[in-house]
């Protein structure tokens, strides 16, 4: 790097060619292998498979959803621990045992669907996936039934802190589950439409199902945690 004089006005920046590393910028000076802009149309991120992308995206996304529930759970715990002049525990609707069972079964059916996908039994795969979505839907219906049971007792969102958290946490969980059901619906739809499955598509399908699986099991475990919190910490 030639510097002809030391006067600030006459100093030149080192010329950086795009694919060279000069000594100056080696560490943190911003000099890095940089793909030229015109790498051509249709250039895909082929180095990393799309199923890897789905997986990592889903894992990070789950972390975000988890943090939200952590925030709400902390609020619950703080509220539960503070002088509880108005903390009335609601009786948890018994239907919740049923819905909890259903969601656990849905995780099992999901695993079954995935196993079938891995051994390429596509019609069984889509059938079990459909069953999982169905169980998820049934879970939500039962949650709504639980809400109705509470409303019938006169317990609403604003009745007491426990009920407020109950409605809020179950609603948020159900909303996220609905997202999962929609995703499963998409996957089932794809499975039904695909008559021909080539290897690349198959890998992408495995990737998509893998991501959905993480999400689904996360929601099952999350429900177990929320259930425990609402049921036993009051």
């Amino acid at each position: 790097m030639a510097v002809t004089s030391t006067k600030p006005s006459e100093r030149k920046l080192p010329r950086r060619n795009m694919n060279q590393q000069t000594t100056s910028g080696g560490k943190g000076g911003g000099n890095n292998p940089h793909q030229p802009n015109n790498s051509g149309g249709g250039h895909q991120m082929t180095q990393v498979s799309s199923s890897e992308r789905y997986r990592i995206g889903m894992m990070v996304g789950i972390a975000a959803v988890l943090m939200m529930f952590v925030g709400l759970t902390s609020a619950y715990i703080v509220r539960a621990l503070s002088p509880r002049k108005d903390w009335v525990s609601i009786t948890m609707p018994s239907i919740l045992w049923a819905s909890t069972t259903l969601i656990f079964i849905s995780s099992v059916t999901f695993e079954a669907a995935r196993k079938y996908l891995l051994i390429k039994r596509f019609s069984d795969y889509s059938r079990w996936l459909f069953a999982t979505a169905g169980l998820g839907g049934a879970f939500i219906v039962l949650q709504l039934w639980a809400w109705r049971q509470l409303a019938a007792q006169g317990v609403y969102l604003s009745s007491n802190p426990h009920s407020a958290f109950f409605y809020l946490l179950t609603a948020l969980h159900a909303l996220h589950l609905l997202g999962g059901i929609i995703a499963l619906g998409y996957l089932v739809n794809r499975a039904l439409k695909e008559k021909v499955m080539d290897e690349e598509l198959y890998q992408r399908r495995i990737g998509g199902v893998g991501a959905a699986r993480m999400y689904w099991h996360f929601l099952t475990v999350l429900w177990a945690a929320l259930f425990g919190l609402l049921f036993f910490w009051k």
Partner: protein
Amino acid sequence: MLSPDGNENQTMISENSNDDIDGIERAGRPRSSQFVRRYIFTTNHKVIAIQYLCLSLFAVVIAIVLSVLMRLQLAWSSVMQPDFYLSVMTMHGTLMIFYVLTIAPQSGFGNYFFPLQIGAEGMAHPRLNALSFWITFLSLMIFLSSFFIESNVIGSISGWTAYPPLSVLGETKGLDIWLISLSLFCVGALLNAVNFISTFLRFRKVELMKLPLTSWSWFTASVLSLVVFPVLLSAFLLLFLDRNAQTSFFIPSNIYIGGQIVESHKGGSPLLWQHLFWFFGHPEVYIAILPGMGITSHVIATFTGKAIFNYKSMVTATVAIAFLGLVLWGHHMFTSGLNPNLSIAFSILTLAIAVPSAVKTFNWLATLWRGKIVLKTPMLYSIGFVSLFVTGGLTGLVLGQSGLDSAMHDTYFVVAHFHLVMGASAVFALFAAMSFWFPEMFGREMNETLGKVHFFITFVGVYAMFVPMHAMGLVGMPRRYASFEEYEYLKDLQTLVKFVTIAAIITATAQALFFVNLVWSILRGKNTSAEYRL
């Protein structure tokens, strides 16, 4: 490649391509849909970055106008009603913190350069990237709608901190809009954070310890975002419910307001809101400043012709600031009625974070030592950053001590502190980034002379605006006051207040230089010689 229905599908190709900005002719397609595909619903990270930057520019202009309005009221009271003043103040703060300082450094410049610096071909989830922009755009539109729904205020009056019970019981409809728009913002920010993190973890081709410091800052800031924005979202949900569904997360019993006892709320805790909010709020300021620190390192290294001094410890300091930043939130609550023993811990941790910040400053100085310094505009802004960050950061040592904070809390001393670090330093980093990366982004150069003039006026201007505020705070001038006429002991400060207002008007006007430079250079700037800089 084959799409699932077996057809050659060019749409799918372009969705994954990050280069369609360079003009891939699709024969037979009408022009308007090309424009729409290329600039509106693009998934190209560079275009999305520019979309984000445009959004921030739009927001910052509005926020600057609001700040000038505030200053006019403070200098010459009776310019506006007090509740109007409070709404202007709230909108100013919210716009600046969220739509400018969270967006521009990270989703703007980060989206553009992060993939390039780490050797990825684009962001990991291009469509998610586009989605997160449009969600943020929608969020801003909803946010701005609160300007029009009430006649006497332009939105919420509770400050950007929206403390209950005031924000539940004493507020206008503007706050519901505030909550909805910012909840959307949280979602957009989270999706963007997911993108950054995924890209870093799976698409990085450059060795970790050879990454530019900007990449480290963007990654660290996005991890912070991932952890804290969901907590903000949960706080918003709870506040929304308290306001609209008569829940009592934050409202205690026995409140007498508006001539009657409030029956519908009981047993909640206003402090709970503060904990949730500041658990987000403190890391948020690090999310705002870390990319700026990265950019400063980047620019200083470039314009001294050498690598940043002690790169490894800069990385360590960045990560340390991020981690420590998560456990300091209580220093916003020293006077809040928080358990005083917790305050001890928060106070000591707060002063501890000054250590990595000081380390960074020393390293910048060491990089400058005997460097072959080229004083082009980006370098000037970065040096300005160091100066302003030191000034602003040092007052943190006063505020971080719980005993001293008791006198300074909610005074102009705090206003001076956060404006110097966020309003001045972080913004200078944005100026540096824009002028530094302009050739790379637009193939042209910004005008140096205009840049230097803008730098000098703004640099002097921000010092003129915010240094006097320290004095005001020490005398005892409180924050969030629409006027100081009521108080005898503040009367002598009125000249200083007017001085600050004049400085603000001049500095705000001088920003036109930057905008003019920016727009003109994009359209007609000198074509740059091929010194592409990442």
